């Protein structure tokens, strides 16, 4: 799949045997982060009481995630809002930019989604220990469970916790790759059907309409996956922030 290929953009010397050169994937992360920065610089430049269009969009995104952290984590959510918002904005921007033809989708790289998933779970574990100390392990011991099934429940809880970063990574990765592959396959149909004569052209037109519809769907998926990632990050943070209420 050519569109997912990693190419070197700027070669850098290896550090400790690891190749840290800037690849097209890293380049598009930087472009996405720069886009987010420029967008919010523009959106918050005027800081008008009556917002313009750009400022309205910026505030909508802000309030979307703010309501999320507020409603899921509660009053303490304020502290984790910047982290969740950065996750959301960064992933959203990478997903959206990837939908533009010839642009690279960094979130279609498992390395990227896995790192983001591990980042979330690392923050969750860090916050869990910082707030609860060793009480963090109570997360795996639900209250009100009969003692004889408790070991089994603990094992299940530990596994479900460990699976969280994997599901986070694979969900985003799968959605992004799947969408692009579907678009690519349909695009291939258009070309090969179009070469088959009149009937083929008719079929190609139908397929082309399908591509337009799927592209619209992919924009929704791009937003939705970023949102889902943010929601799950909130849910996992809530588990350790409000541990006592479990």
């Amino acid at each position, binding site marked *: 799949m050519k569109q997912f290929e990693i190419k070197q953009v700027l070669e850098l010397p290896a550090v400790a045997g690891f*190749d840290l050169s*800037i690849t097209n994937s890293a380049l598009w992360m930087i472009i996405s982060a720069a886009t987010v920065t420029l967008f919010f610089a523009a959106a918050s430049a005027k800081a008008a009481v009556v917002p313009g269009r750009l400022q309205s969009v910026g505030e909508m995104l802000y309030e979307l995630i703010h309501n999320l952290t507020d409603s899921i984590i509660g009053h303490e959510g304020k502290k984790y809002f910047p982290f969740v918002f950065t996750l959301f904005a960064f992933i959203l921007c990478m997903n959206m930019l990837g939908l533009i033809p010839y642009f690279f989708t960094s979130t*279609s790289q498992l390395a990227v989604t896995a790192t983001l998933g591990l980042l979330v779970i690392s923050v969750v574990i860090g916050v869990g220990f910082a707030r609860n100390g060793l009480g963090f392990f109570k997360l795996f011991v639900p209250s009100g469970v009969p003692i004889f099934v408790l070991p089994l429940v603990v094992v299940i809880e530990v596994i479900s916790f460990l699976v969280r970063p994997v599901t986070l990574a694979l969900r985003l990765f799968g959605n992004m790759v799947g969408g692009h592959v579907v678009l690519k396959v349909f695009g291939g149909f258009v070309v090969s059907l179009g070469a088959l004569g009149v009937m083929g052209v008719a079929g190609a037109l139908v397929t082309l309409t399908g591509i337009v519809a799927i592209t619209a769907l992919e924009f929704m998926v791009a937003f939705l996956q970023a949102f889902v990632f943010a929601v799950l990050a909130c849910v996992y943070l809530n588990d350790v922030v409000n541990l006592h209420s479990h």
Partner: protein
Amino acid sequence: MAQTTPELDPGAAPVDTPYGTPSQDTYATTTEADQGSSGLPQFEFGYWPGQIFWLLIVFVILYVILSKLFLPRVGGVIEARAAKIEGDLADARTARDEAERQSSEAAAELAQARARAQKTAADAKAAAKAEAETRNAAEEAKLHERLAAAEASIQAGREQAMANVRNLAAETAEAIVEKLSGKAPTRAEVDSALSRNAA
């Protein structure tokens, strides 16, 4: 699409030369032409350290920029707007209360003014009436006086005339008595005779 699983093929993407594989640039459709390299490029682990490294760097930078600069700014605007709306509502509420207070005050003042005006009008009417009455009374008194004076003067005239008539009668009686008896009577005799006849 992955015909050979890249994980099981350690020689396909060696870590030390990760940039060797993407060589074929001719692809038209989603056909086997793409699959020349070992399946999905995402599983070429030689590219992973660089991506992970740059992702963390970029994420941290973006986090710092957003959390220190833009999120407080956007949040500040939203809070300022909420505060402004709240303040404007409070202002409007106080303004409305003030207006209501003023309108009730004005109504009270109006009622007072109306009462005062009615009282003034009534007073003026009463004063005018009283003045007219006094003037009428004065006029009447003057008329009475003039009437009395006229009556008195008539009375005086009449008495004067009566006295003149008596004198005339006395003189006539003297003349008649002198002519008849040749002897003029005294005035006292004539007067007594006139008094007797007049009685």
